[in-house]
């Protein structure tokens, strides 16, 4: 798998370097009727999900081992499929008129295949987040395998739910239609509600799941109301088209309100303040693998959906109407708020998982720096705006990879400790260095990465975000500079609570009876912890590895920009027909 990934990264690098992508080009008509191939990864996940339910019924087949391998294959296969398609697939918005004409345009720009669909985009951006969801799903499988506290009997249900959730994330990453986006969010949410409450006897879990669900119900209600308002004004649910049509609607209050409502729905998935209240309880109550899965994959999917949505809706400076939402200030303020609340609250936590939950809220805040840069780019428009927006999106994607690695690793350490001590409190970490030096050192590396201190991958991620933010600030948005300073201060604050782990592990004496007993970590545990820690350092040293793929992710999303003139003409023409 690593080889595959390396190869894919290599070919992506080639693509970024401007090398020819392939010798052939299919006309849109040729593949026009056969776009189902692009949907294959999702279909495989869906199929595996159904198969899993069937296997789970049979007493003979339903060993955890079988179920795990089934789920593993069911996620690895689509991942490889998408990697194989990397840099070739592309989506064209349906309302751009003549598909063939557009296809010629993209041929000139070096794309190999062009396909059209109306609900889903199969562009690099979607591919990136799909791979991300699948990879997180695979890591979650390993963590579920590692977690001994889970009831083995109901393993099948658990894996089915994870698969369902991953499917929702994949769909959300490619949704170009608000209804589709809404349905995907519901799909992943419903699965995760159950996942959180999986230990039925556990009061904390049930409480967390209840809060999670209530919040989910409210925010998706608000979101669907916002969507209906937008539909009423634009007459379409297609995101790109909606963005263009809303320019002609002269009702800033209604548009602003509707956009705000939809943002609530995404914000809940991203767990950004003030829609974050569910997160700590759900994260603390859920089984640790689920917590890691939610805090990484589900958040990433939320960001993917939000970026696509916001990117299409950022039209303030060009439209005649001025909606009340100024995306840049809005996202920047949300970001500053989220990271500050996350970090300040984390300072007071005594439970390791809860602390990491708040830290994950803070990280959502850092990620919003990249999103704010996307907003700046959208507002500026033109080539320079596009460049900034791409930088922002690529930085967000890049940080997401770093965050995925370090967060899964940190949760794996919490699990390893909880296995032996039966406790997820900070005090369980006391004297860990004496019990297992290797684990303590790995945790140190992961924590450094979470703070963003070199030599770790988290540092490069943060650097990417800061570069994007500064570029946006230089384009004449002082609020971005303020956001960066707030982020810097927050990083210093965060170091205090992350270092409580270090203090506990290396400095605190710990209970003598416990400390004398070595802490044993199983092979899967070492694979998870050691793998993520080594990756954190290794990817720092090989810093360019993921830059190319994340850039690629945004390069393909860039499609509307070079085609802007043509596309607008085409869409206007079409819109005229439509009304």
């Amino acid at each position, binding site marked *: 798998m690593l080889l595959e990934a390396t190869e894919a990264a290599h070919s992506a690098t080639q693509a970024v370097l*401007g090398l020819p992508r392939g010798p052939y080009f299919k006309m849109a008509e040729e593949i026009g009727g056969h776009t189902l191939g692009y949907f294959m990864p999702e279909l495989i996940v869906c199929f595996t999900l159904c198969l899993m339910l069937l296997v789970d019924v049979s007493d003979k087949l339903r060993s955890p081992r079988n179920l795990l391998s089934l789920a593993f294959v069911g996620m690895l296969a689509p991942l490889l499929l998408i990697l194989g398609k990397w840099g070739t697939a592309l989506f064209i918005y349906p309302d751009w008129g003549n598909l063939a004409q557009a296809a010629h345009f993209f041929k000139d720009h070096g794309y190999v295949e062009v396909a059209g669909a109306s609900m889903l985009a199969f562009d690099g951006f979607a591919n990136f987040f799909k791979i991300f969801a699948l990879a997180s799903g695979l890591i979650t499988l390993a963590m579920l395998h590692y977690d001994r506290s889970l009831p083995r009997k109901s393993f099948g249900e658990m894996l089915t739910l994870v698969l369902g959730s991953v499917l929702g994330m994949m769909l959300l990453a490619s949704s170009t239609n608000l209804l589709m986006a809404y349905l995907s969010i519901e799909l992943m949410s419903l699965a995760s509600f159950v996942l959180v409450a999986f230990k039925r006897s556990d009061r904390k879990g049930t409480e967390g799941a209840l809060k999670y669900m209530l919040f989910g119900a409210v925010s998706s209600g608000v979101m669907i109301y916002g969507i209906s308002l937008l539909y009423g004004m634009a007459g379409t649910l297609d995101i790109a088209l909606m963005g263009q049509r809303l320019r002609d609607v002269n009702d800033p209050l209604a548009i602003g309100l509707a956009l705000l409502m939809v943002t609530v729905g995404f914000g809940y998935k991203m767990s950004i303040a003030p829609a974050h209240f569910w997160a700590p309880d759900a994260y603390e109550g859920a089984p640790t693998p689920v917590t890691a899965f939610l805090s990484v994959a589900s958040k990433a999917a939320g960001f993917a959906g939000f970026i696509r949505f916001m990117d299409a809706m950022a039209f303030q400076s060009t439209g005649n109407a001025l909606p009340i939402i100024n995306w840049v200030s809005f996202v920047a303020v949300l970001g500053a708020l989220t990271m500050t609340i996350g970090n300040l609250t984390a300072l007071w936590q005594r439970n390791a998982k809860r602390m990491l939950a708040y830290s994950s809220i803070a990280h959502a805040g850092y990620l919003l720096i990249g999103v704010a840069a996307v907003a700046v780019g959208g507002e500026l428009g033109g080539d320079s705006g596009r460049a900034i927006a791409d930088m922002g999106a690529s930085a967000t994607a890049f940080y997401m990879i770093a965050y995925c690695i370090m967060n899964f690793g940190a949760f794996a350490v919490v699990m390893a400790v909880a296995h032996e001590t039966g406790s997820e409190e900070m005090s369980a970490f006391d004297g860990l260095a004496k019990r297992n030096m290797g684990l303590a050192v790995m945790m140190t590396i992961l924590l450094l990465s979470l703070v963003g201190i070199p030599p770790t991958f988290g540092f490069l991620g943060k650097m990417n975000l800061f570069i994007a933010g*500064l570029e946006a600030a230089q384009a004449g948005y002082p609020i971005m500079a303020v956001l*960066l300073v707030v982020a810097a201060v927050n990083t210093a604050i965060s170091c205090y609570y992350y270092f409580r782990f270090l203090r506990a592990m290396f400095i605190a004496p710990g209970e003598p009876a416990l400390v004398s007993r070595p802490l044993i970590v199983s092979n899967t545990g070492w694979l998870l912890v050691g793998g993520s820690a080594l990756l954190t350092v290794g990817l720092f040293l090989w810093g360019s590895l993921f830059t190319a793929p994340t850039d690629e992710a945004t390069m393909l999303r860039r499609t509307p920009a070079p085609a802007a003139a043509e596309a607008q003409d085409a869409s206007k023409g079409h819109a005229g027909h439509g009304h």
Partner: protein
Amino acid sequence: MLLTLTIFTPLLFALICLFVRDLRTVKLLTLTGTLLTFFLSLGLILPLGSRGSMTSLAQECEDTGKIGSLLADLRGNPETRNTSYTENLAREVEVMQRASQSEYSSSLHHIEFVPWIKSFNVNYFLGVDGLGVALIVLTTFLCLVSLGAAWNMDKSLDHHTHKPKYQGMRAFFILYLILETGIIGVFCSMDYLLFYVFWEVVLLPMYFLVGIWGGPRRIYAAIKFFIYTLAGSLLMFIAMLYYYLATDGGHGGTFNVVALTELLPRHFALAPTAGALCFIGLFVAFAVKVPVWPFHTWLPDAHVEAPTPISMLLAGILLKMGGYGLFRFSYMFMPQQAYDMTTVVLVLGSISIVYGAYCALGQTDFKRMVAYSSVSHMGYVLLGMAAMTKLGLIGASFQMINHGISSPMMFALVGVIYERAHHRDLNRFGGIANQMPKYAGMALVGFFASIGLPGLNGFISEALVFFGAFQSNLGNAGDGAWWMVWTSVRFWTVICTLGIVLTAAYLLWGYQRVFYGKMKDPHYKDFKDLNATEWATLVPLAIFCVVLGIFPQLGIKYLDGPMRVLQNNMARHVPEFARQIEEDRLENLNRPAGKEIAMLNGVYTK
């Protein structure tokens, strides 16, 4: 290659130590590692002495062909010819070639250049000039010497429980070696991102070394040290990224320090506000490390709580990282802003000198007194730097070296007595000189070097700073309204002389309280005089105090070049400063005694 070896030898030994269980072997390995590193660093001096074998940046670029051939390959291949990476590299080479005509780059030696993170144009770019070499040698020397203070730490018993006081000493030596790698890396990185990486790498071992093996309030001290420095370095981080974007010509900017020195002054001439903000950010980052009042409050805590060898390294080298940063980055990248902020730097430096000394006077804890003396002594670095005269700059950089020798010696002396008395209260000592005459003798050297007694190293640098600062015409030096005189360097130089008086006061008073008078505790009768490892720690330091006091040229000859580069760089980008230098030169020539003195000097040196 030599620089890479010097940086990573300690790390290599740290890795070996990871697999060794026996503490004694680990100790010996650490000793071997630091000794080897020390000799390697001595090798760095050689090409500076013999100018024949020096390789400049330009030569390195063209001769070794590392980049050149890579670029040729990329250009030769039709597939890679027009890629952004090729263009980046071409631009980098162009900038380096342009920059290599500058004085700055020809003062760099032992250059190593390997592309690293291509998407951000980050390179593994190392090089040293005289200042870097002096600080690297100081580092390797101190790491070797401080080992003496760490050698018997595992045998030292707790005063009350009579159990070993320090546990897990294996990890101590491993972290010690990692720390050394980080510090050497800081002093020779010529890529700003690489510098930042090493800068942060230093923090974590330090956190553990203070936090695990420190005194009673170690946890508080360690995290305070960490957060202060991290907050400062984050400001530097933002400034660094700004530089990267500011030099962006369409294909990403650069982190190359030589290129930045060329490009940034010109950029900031057009963007003065950004320049001022960047200068403040960088200044705060380095001021925390120096430490300058009012960013100094972490220092007394960290120094007091740290174990003796770590206090020695903290005072000896870590503070110099701040001074080095100011010289190498703040003043080189933003000469105009540095010139504009002369008064701010000056006032902060002066306050550090006087306030640090005043606080030291009030301490009853021996170690705390020494810690505050560091604040005071590092203030001279700022004073000399703000003056921007040749003598002032050389004095300032030489003060870094000298403080790097005398202050570790003071901490080693404190360690000796603390090991025996288990307290550091100045008022409870007395009469130690009778009991431990050899110790008292060594202490005399350390104390007087700190005071700045002629013949010892501290005197030379402080005198140079004062001469240089009083020479300086920066600020209002008598040709403006009289009430603006407080902006002048000369005014503050006079104020700073107060620091000398206070320094003499607290050190002599401290010496008196510890060594003379009546013995206040009968236990002191049992104290043994210096043992072998303590001799091994103190004697090399004392020798350097004397040698550099009598032959200061040994150190100054390496600092002369870099400081001239610094001054010329400012003169090149700040017209007012260039005018002032020219005026000063003429004025000096026209002084009645000027020519005669020059002649006499010529006679005597012949």
